[in-house]
């Protein structure tokens, strides 16, 4: 039976043999098998398996031709190809080692590759615009009004810089907003941008259909036109090229479409549906209103330093050129400054810090993986030390030996790297799929050639390092000792043991550091989530509407529409409270209006600077769940009778009127009349939960009688569900809006919970990545510990056998192994804790309300790691106790 199988195997292998030799070759093998089966007949099948390699060898040598006749240079036998094959075979002969090493390395290398790809795409690669490294953003930091405050340009300032800055080839301006589209389908609210032509030129915009803006479109008298984004064109107009030239109803106005932008073209950091030209009037009076987003292109030969210097000089001249808008008091109080920054720096923002930290974490994992495998290689090298010695004695030069082991190491690591890169590609797909919005450029991440090259190079270097171990061990003194000890079945001398232990300790230390970092971040996250936002987000649905001047020509009409909608919403049984505001907490940006205080009551100069101002309706505080702590909130009468009542947040009250109650105090905006504070409310968190409390002054929708501030056309509504659940509120809200005006689109329907969680996105994302790295570190640590302890136990079988034979109980042997492992773990723990304390201050920027050396976290991590180490060493330790002393003693 076995013979038949063996013969069949040989026939299969014969396919490889060149046809002219095949018959002979098969006959030779079948004959040998026949004789084998007549003899002891052991392992015919195994022997037959060798036929494949034999056939392959015949094939190689038949094709390759003979070396010159009479040549006795056998050196050529040790070709790279042969060594490669040998190395491969050696690896497959110890499958346990190879499997563990490959899994460990590919995890480590894969994770590193994935994060490198992210770092490369997000931080290093240039933005997708032509010559993107020459693009710059201009803005005005105003630290006098807040540490991180930065404003856009004013219109007058924009022209001023455009004329004066020679270091810029182009300077463009834009601002974003929203418009209603009411033709060709359901009314929809589109995100829009008004931009001057240089913006599109600087960004290298091209069109799929039609044209982009030209300078003529920027003239103040020119007609309005629309440029559609590619996404909008496909989504709403079915990619119909005929849309160019058609008129769209935008905010009640008929606007012709002049073109469609190329696919993939975006404003940096924003997805915008439609572009309009921004027809700025050069002659218009200068105003102290800074909302212009400016982008420019550096002139050839110019650099950021020169541009910054020019802008600073020009900024200093603003008060002399526009004294009404840029008063000296304003300039010194706000500490008005100028700044030119690389576009990429602006886009990437502070994500860089988080990414580098994650990269460091993953780097630690890779180092752990390498330490792990190094340990395994070391132990395995000791086991093969005899083979090394004999090879060396048989004349294999040190170079040949070196090359052989080097190949083995490199084969291992490069193979793992290939697998790792595949894993990285998968991981990136998963990462992008669950990527939260707010991480810039994540959709651009790919495993680039650079990443693959770096990882490959790392693999080769590491593999070479691994390969060096057996060579280093084959020095003559060690050689003799090893050979002799090989005869007695003991493991290598103290030097090697120390290295091995050192590697284990290092692994544990690295794992501690990684876990501690993750633990701290997890606690941060926990604290962040528990922050009192100052309002109740649960059960609140928000949406936005915009009232265009065509349908609502004056302030009265706007106010009437808001009042009607609010009344209609509050009348619904599903809604407990409804309110409106021009900007929600957390998602609002820095917007301020200059406010002047009534002098007799203010403690400082009459100008209060530029505090945060919000326009809200009555019912707003109830809808969001903001507590009124003194006085009252807004009532409808404030709007009807234009009482001029305002409400201050607690921090604002402390800021403007410290030490006394703010109720009754006055403040005014642009007009002459003073508004009076009627109440104080609890603070809400500003942009992002980790921002501090922002002082806010709340104004009513209707201004004081006799004063006019522009009507608030774009409002965000917040409705609190009576039942506590927001499901089912959406149709109710749509119905209410449709009743007020069927042409009004409802936009940005989101629950407050969603908005809150989105603000924590950066921390969440980083935490997720660190958590994954930690889990991998734990896995690698476990596998490593298990692998090494197993191997060493197997090597020391003899010693265990002796001990057991001499009367030691199994438990004693187990205990011995465990004690060794635990001692190493404790050493690693100590080192790791020191390392953690030294390095976690680097995490400070990502931590929230948690000290970098939080003792509770460190204690938990230590306990976890100790438990893991004991677990990993347990199984091999038990196996040590079950060694049969007779077998162990007999084996060589």
């Amino acid at each position, binding site marked *: 039976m076995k013979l038949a199988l063996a013969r069949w195997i040989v026939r299969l292998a014969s396919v490889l043999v060149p046809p002219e030799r095949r018959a*002979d070759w098969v006959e030779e093998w079948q004959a040998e098998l026949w004789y*084998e089966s007549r003899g002891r007949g052991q392992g015919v099948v195994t022997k037959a*398996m*060798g036929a494949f390699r034999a056939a392959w060898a015949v094939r190689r040598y038949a094709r390759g031709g003979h070396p010159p006749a009479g040549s*006795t240079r056998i050196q050529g*036998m040790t070709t790279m190809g042969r060594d490669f094959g040998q190395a491969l075979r050696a690896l497959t002969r110890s499958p346990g080692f190879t499997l563990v090493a490959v899994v460990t390395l590919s995890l480590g290398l894969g994770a590193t590759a994935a994060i490198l790809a992210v770092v490369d795409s997000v931080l290093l690669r240039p933005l997708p615009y032509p010559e993107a490294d020459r693009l710059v953003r201009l803005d005005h930091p105003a630290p006098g009004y807040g540490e991180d405050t930065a404003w856009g340009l004013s219109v007058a300032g924009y022209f001023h810089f455009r004329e004066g800055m020679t270091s810029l080839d182009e300077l463009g301006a834009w601002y974003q907003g929203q418009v209603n589209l009411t033709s060709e389908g359901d009314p929809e609210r589109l995100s829009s941008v008004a931009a001057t032509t240089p913006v599109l030129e600087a960004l290298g915009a091209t069109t799929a259909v039609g044209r982009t803006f030209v300078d003529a479109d920027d003239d103040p008298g020119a007609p309005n036109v629309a440029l559609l984004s590619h996404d909008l064109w496909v989504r709403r107009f079915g990619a119909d090229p005929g849309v160019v030239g058609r008129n769209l109803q935008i905010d009640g106005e008929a606007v012709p479409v002049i073109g469609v932008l190329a696919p993939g073209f975006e404003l940096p950091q924003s997805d915008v549906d439609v572009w309009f030209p921004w027809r700025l009037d050069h002659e218009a009076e200068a105003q102290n209103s800074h909302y212009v987003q400016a982008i420019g292109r550096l002139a050839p030969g110019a650099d950021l330093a020169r541009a910054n210097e020019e802008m600073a000089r020009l900024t200093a001249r603003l008060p002399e050129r526009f004294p009404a808008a840029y008063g000296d008091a304003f300039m010194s109080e706000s500490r008005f400054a100028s700044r030119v920054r690389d576009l990429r720096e602006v886009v990437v923002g502070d994500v860089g810090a988080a990414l580098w930290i994650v990269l460091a974490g993953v780097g630690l994992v890779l180092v752990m993986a390498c330490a792990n495998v190094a340990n395994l290689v070391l132990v395995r090298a000791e086991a093969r030390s005899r083979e090394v010695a004999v090879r060396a004695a048989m*004349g294999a030069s040190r170079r040949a030996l070196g090359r052989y082991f080097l190949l083995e190491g490199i084969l291992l690591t490069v193979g793992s790297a290939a697998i790792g890169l595949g894993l990285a590609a998968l991981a990136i797909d998963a990462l992008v799929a669950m990527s939260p919005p707010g991480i810039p450029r994540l959709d651009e991440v790919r495993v680039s050639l650079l990443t693959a090259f770096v990882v490959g190079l790392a693999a080769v270097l590491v593999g070479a390092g691994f390969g060096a171990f057996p060579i280093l061990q084959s020095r003559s003194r060690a050689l003799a000792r090893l050979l002799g000890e090989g005869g007695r079945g003991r493991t290598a001398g103290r030097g090697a043991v120390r290295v091995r232990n050192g590697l284990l300790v290092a692994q544990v230390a690295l794992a501690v550091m990684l876990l501690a970092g993750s633990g701290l971040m997890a606690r941060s996250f926990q604290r962040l989530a528990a922050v009192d936002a100052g309002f109740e987000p649960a059960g609140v649905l928000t949406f936005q509407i915009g009232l265009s001047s065509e349908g609502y020509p004056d302030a009265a009409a706007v106010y009437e529409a808001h009042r009607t909608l609010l009344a209609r919403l509050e009348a619904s049984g599903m809604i407990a409270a409804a309110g409106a505001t021009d900007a929600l907490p957390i998602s609002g940006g820095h917007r301020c209006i200059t406010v002047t205080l009534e002098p007799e009551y203010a403690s400082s100069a009459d100008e209060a600077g530029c505090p945060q101002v919000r326009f809200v309706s009555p019912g707003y505080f109830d809808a969001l769940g903001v507590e009124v702590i003194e006085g009252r909130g807004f009532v409808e009468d404030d709007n009807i009778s234009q009482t001029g009542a305002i409400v201050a947040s607690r921090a604002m009250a402390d800021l403007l009127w410290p030490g006394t109650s703010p109720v009754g105090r006055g403040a005014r905006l642009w007009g002459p009349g003073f508004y009076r504070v009627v109440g104080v409310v609890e603070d809400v968190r500003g942009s992002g939960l980790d921002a501090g409390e922002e002082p806010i002054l709340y104004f009513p929708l209707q201004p004081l009688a006799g004063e006019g501030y522009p009507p608030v056309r774009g409002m965000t509504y917040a409705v609190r569900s009576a039942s506590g659940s927001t499901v089912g509120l959406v149709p109710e809200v749509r119905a209410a809006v449709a009743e007020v005006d069927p042409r009004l689109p409802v936009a940005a329907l989101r629950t407050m919970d969603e908005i809150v969680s989105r603000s924590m996105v950066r921390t969440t994302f980083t935490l997720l990545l660190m958590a994954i790295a930690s889990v991998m570190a734990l896995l690698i640590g476990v596998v490593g510990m298990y692998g090494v302890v197993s191997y060493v136990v197997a090597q020391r079988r003899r010693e265990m056998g002796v001990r057991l034979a001499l009367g030691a109980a199994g438990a004693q042997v187990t205990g011995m192994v465990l004690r060794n492992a635990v001692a190493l773990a404790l050493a690693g723990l100590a080192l790791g804790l020191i390392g953690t304390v030294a390095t976690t201050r680097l995490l400070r920027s990502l931590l929230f309300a948690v000290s970098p050396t939080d003792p509770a976290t460190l204690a938990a991590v230590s306990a976890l790691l100790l438990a893991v180490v004991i677990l990993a060493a347990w199984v091999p330790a038990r196996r040590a106790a079950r060694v049969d002393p007779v077998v162990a003693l007999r084996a060589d």
Partner: protein
Amino acid sequence: MSEPESATLSFNAALVLQGMTRGHRYGFELMKVTGLPSGTVYPILARLEATGLVRSRWENEERAHGEGRPRRRYYETTGAGEVTLRAALEKLARQSRLFGDALQTGSPVE
């Protein structure tokens, strides 16, 4: 005959050649006597044959069939093969002096 430029056979190849000179001529016999698997021995034989150190021949067909068994292929060293093997053995002898009796007794000299 000139001294071969370098007589470094791979260790396994030397084993195989040595086995051959000791009279083990068939593939499977060489496997047993050297302790190497078939996947190693046969490629070595192919290599040695390709470089002219060894030649292979069928044994006498009539005799084999007459005795009711299949004919076997046997291998023998060529002149070049003998020379190469001799050089390798000399080198080995020089080097193994380092071990003294260690190879026989299995323990280090000290």
